[in-house]
């Protein structure tokens, strides 16, 4: 077997393979998926000379460890964490050479939730519908990493521009999400809209790749009853019967039957990937 592969030594709480996601299949019920923090994923890819949307590992809170068969250049970014190679400290946020047979350990996130690990050549798991992303909602793409699993690596692109360091926006203490009301804000009382856009919410521990759940004041409905299922977008703020807003993230269902009170600005969604449970959330209305 080729030495362009790595074995999973410690899978961590939830480590998945992610790339740019699966676009164009929402009408068949297939979520987009892809890296929850696409900026971080693109940055680590740049550091190893990959295209920004090459497949990387996305860890959740406690990192992971892998043993590379051959020598490979890697970069760890996203949520800051300790990085070691065969037990020796290595740099976070820049490219690192991992010798053949050495163990790359990605430690627990010091701040934020999700660290990203890029390998020169990218993770070459079998693509499904044009993407190597793990989709936890519908079970498409490679299964979440498990100890002992071996994943192949692609061929590093030749002549790719090489970066030593890239800017990383850091993890905010407060998650500020600009929202545009609608399409179903008229299903809520005026008071509910005032509550949403003025009161403090917190990130709930039950958040996952499907949605960022919040704790805080419940939003009161003006229209009772059920909304017929309709298409959902990334960043949709859906309000289930308990009245607590849920921000739809990459693995969100493609259609849903709870009203969407507002939609988070596209550029603000990635920050939600790094907000630990308990982080204050504010929804700022924009036009």
């Amino acid at each position: 077997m080729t030495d362009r592969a790595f074995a999973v030594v410690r899978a961590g709480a939830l480590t998945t393979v992610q790339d740019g996601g699966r676009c164009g299949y929402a009408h068949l019920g297939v979520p987009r998926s892809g890296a929850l923090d696409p900026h971080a994923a693109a940055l680590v890819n740049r550091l190893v000379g990959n295209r920004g949307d090459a497949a990387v590992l996305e860890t959740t809170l406690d990192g992971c460890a892998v043993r590379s068969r051959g020598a490979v250049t890697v970069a760890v970014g996203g949520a800051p964490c300790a990085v070691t190679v065969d037990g020796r400290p290595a740099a976070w946020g820049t490219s690192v050479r991992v010798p053949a047979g050495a163990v790359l350990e990605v430690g627990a996130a010091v701040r934020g939730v999700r660290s990203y690990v890029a390998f020169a050549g990218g993770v070459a798991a079998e693509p499904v519908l044009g993407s190597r992303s793990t989709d936890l909602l519908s079970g498409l793409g490679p299964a979440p990493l498990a100890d002992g699993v071996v994943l192949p690596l692609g061929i590093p692109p030749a002549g790719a521009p090489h970066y030593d360091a890239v800017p990383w926006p850091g993890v905010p203490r407060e998650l500020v999400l600009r929202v545009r009301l609608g399409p179903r804000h008229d299903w809520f009382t005026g008071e509910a809209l005032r509550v949403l856009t003025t009161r403090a919410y917190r990130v709930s521990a039950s958040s996952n790749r499907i949605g960022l759940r919040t704790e805080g004041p419940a939003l009161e409905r003006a229209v009772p009853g059920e909304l017929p299922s309709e298409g959902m977008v990334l960043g949709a703020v859906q309000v289930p019967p308990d009245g607590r807003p849920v921000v739809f993230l990459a693995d969100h269902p493609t259609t849903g039957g709870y009203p969407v009170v507002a939609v988070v600005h596209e550029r603000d969604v990635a920050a939600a990937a790094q907000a630990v449970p308990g982080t204050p959330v504010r929804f700022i209305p924009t036009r």
Partner: protein
Amino acid sequence: MRALAVGGRALLLEFGGGDEAQAFHAELLRRRAAGALPAVREIVPAARTVLLDGVEEPGRLAEDVAGWEVPPLHARVEPAVEVPVRYDGPDLAEVAALWGVAPDEVGRIHAGVEYRVAFCGFAPGFGYLTGLPERYGVPRRATPRTAVPAGSVALAGPYTGVYPRSSPGGWQLIGTTDVTLWDPAREPAALLSPGARVRFVPVVREGA
């Protein structure tokens, strides 16, 4: 039709009913195929809406579509997808009671109708099929099952559906099929896509 803004990059087109939404969806696909639609990442039909996601200028597109003349839905020329079914579901008796018919009538009634995939969702390849007359609508089960087997043919509200894989679900199960609804390695991956015509063909159980 109403066009509702969904964030800054999407539009939700809302119609008076499902037929109108399906007709508009068909028109959108026709225009996209003809290169007469601005770039759109996703076109997602649903119960009475069509979502257009990943649109550069949603306001402009909203103005444009408001002026469209959309022909009523007509049957597709391609043949209906045939789904062989054993009418042996655990909720057959309950559905028969709700319909006020004998249990062995359920399959005859269900298979006597031509369906159309109104939209997909819930799971990859799960189609919401319309066509069953209104009087045969049934409520969802009060307590959803934690695991519905793949291939289960089911009813809920005005819809018929087939579970592509084992999953929790609250639909009433009336039968089983062996066809593969969803296979990402197949082209196309989904047996049932929005707009497709569908027929259920009863098969007799071995030994029956």
